[in-house]
Structure formats: C-alpha cells, structure tokens
C-alpha cells in the first residue's frame, strides 16, 4: 500500500517537473516586445511605423525597429555627407531622399505638393513632426537597428546617419531572432 502510494507520488512529481519546464519555456518564448521591419521609405509608412512604435513604448512594450532598404533614407542626416564613395553609391545618394523630411508620399505625392500638405495638416492637428517623433522615440528607448546589407548595397556609410541614442547595426538574423521572441511583429 505504502509502496504503491510512493510510486504514485514519484510519478506525479515527474509530471509536475515536466509541466514546470514547459511553462518556463512558454513564459520565455514571448516577451512584451514589438519587432518591426521598416522597409518602406515612404513618408506615410515611416510615420505610421514611428507612431505605432511610440504608442507601444508608451505602454512599456520594448520596441525594436529594424530599418532596411528604402527606409534607410529616413535615417540620413541632411547635414552630413560621406567621402570615398564609388560612382553608383554617389548616384544612389543623389537620387534617394536625404533624410526624413525629404521623404515622399506613397500616394498623392504630386511632385512634392502632397508631403507639404500633409505636414501642414499634421501641424494643424497637433500631430508630432517626424523630427519630434524620432526625438521622442529616443527618449522612450526605442531601438533602431540598421540593416548592414542594405547599407552596403546602397553605398550608405555610418557617418551619414542621424545621431540617435539607440542606433546599432546588424543583419537579418538579428531581426529574425528579435522577432521570434517578440509578442508582435510588423513588416512595413
């Protein structure tokens, strides 16, 4: 009788340990974190990314924004330039918007009239400007990760990017790893 009981307890103990391990894994699997892949360099899409990021950070969610491809234009500092570029890189530099205030709209751009109108409306409706959004994002500790591969592809150099307090450089695997442990992921 006693033996039977002991063996039952041992079995239960084993099951409990297994469950504990499983719960531990589940708890670690998804953090209160938002991972965003920002690929578009359109004013509207960069703006949407920043607003979502700021709202998430205001709710104490850790935010990591992976900037890649066309979105790199938004991170260029209009006052900075880099030396030692080859011909193609120089052409890319000239043809792409220099900085977040030079971005175009994905719709209704109308040779630059659209962005002017949107910025006017944003001001009128008390929406933060992109400059303010990046400043706020920095204060909230939002991380911006620059895709090294796109940077190389377009010939951008680290010295032409904005001064942002939480800027780092990484590859696609970093985004995949971050996204895997985040509760939410977005591709914009």
């Amino acid at each position, binding site marked *: 009788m006693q033996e039977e009981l002991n063996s039952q307890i041992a079995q239960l103990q084993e099951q409990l340990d297994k469950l504990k391990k499983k719960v531990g894994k589940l708890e670690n699997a998804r953090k209160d974190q938002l991972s965003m892949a920002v690929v578009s360099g359109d004013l509207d899409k960069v703006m949407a990314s920043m607003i979502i990021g700021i709202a998430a950070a205001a709710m104490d969610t850790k935010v990591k924004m992976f900037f890649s491809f066309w979105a790199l234009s938004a991170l260029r500092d209009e006052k900075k330039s880099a030396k030692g570029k080859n011909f193609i890189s120089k052409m890319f530099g000239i043809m792409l918007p220099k900085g977040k205030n030079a971005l175009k709209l994905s719709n209704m751009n109308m040779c630059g009239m659209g962005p002017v109108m949107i910025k006017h409306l944003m001001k009128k409706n008390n*929406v*933060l400007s992109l400059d303010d959004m990046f400043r706020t994002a920095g204060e909230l500790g939002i991380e911006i990760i620059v895709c090294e591969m796109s940077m190389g592809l377009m010939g951008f150099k680290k010295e032409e990017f904005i001064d942002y307090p939480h800027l780092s450089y990484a590859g696609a695997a970093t985004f995949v790893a971050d996204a895997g442990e985040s509760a939410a992921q977005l591709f914009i």
Partner: protein
Amino acid sequence: MMTQEELKALNVDKSVDARGTACPGPLLEAKKAIGTIEEGEIMEILSADEGTKVDIPKWCSKQGHDYLGTVEENGYFKIYMRKNEI
C-alpha cells in the same frame, strides 16, 4: 467603472491636459504623469483626441491600473483612472 455623477464628484490628485496633442501624444503624457502619483491616487487625462478614450482603458488594463470612466465635455474628454502598483 463609475457612473457619470460619481466621476464628476471625484477628487482628482493629478490632472494632465493633453488637449494640444494628437495620437499618441495623450498616452505619452499619461505615461509621463503616472510616475508622479502614488498608488491609489486618481489621475484625469484631458484629451480632444477621440482615439484616446479607447487607448487609455487599454493601457490601464495592460499596466494593471483601474480605468474609472470617461466624461464628455464640450469638444474634449476627461478620462479618469486610478493607479495600482504593478
């Protein structure tokens, strides 16, 4: 949740006027202000942004604060909440 009369009779410990900002400004203001009040104290957020009256309850439920209700004034909202220690 409280009734409109109860909300109007509340003694507010902190008032945040975020009527000059659009989404997500009011949420940011609320986040900044919550650090300045104690557990159990009541804060009101004034916002002219319609989205805020939906956003603040979401924020409260995520952070474990009590959302008490919203009073609609002329052209803006007063959103009430009570701070809980997380």
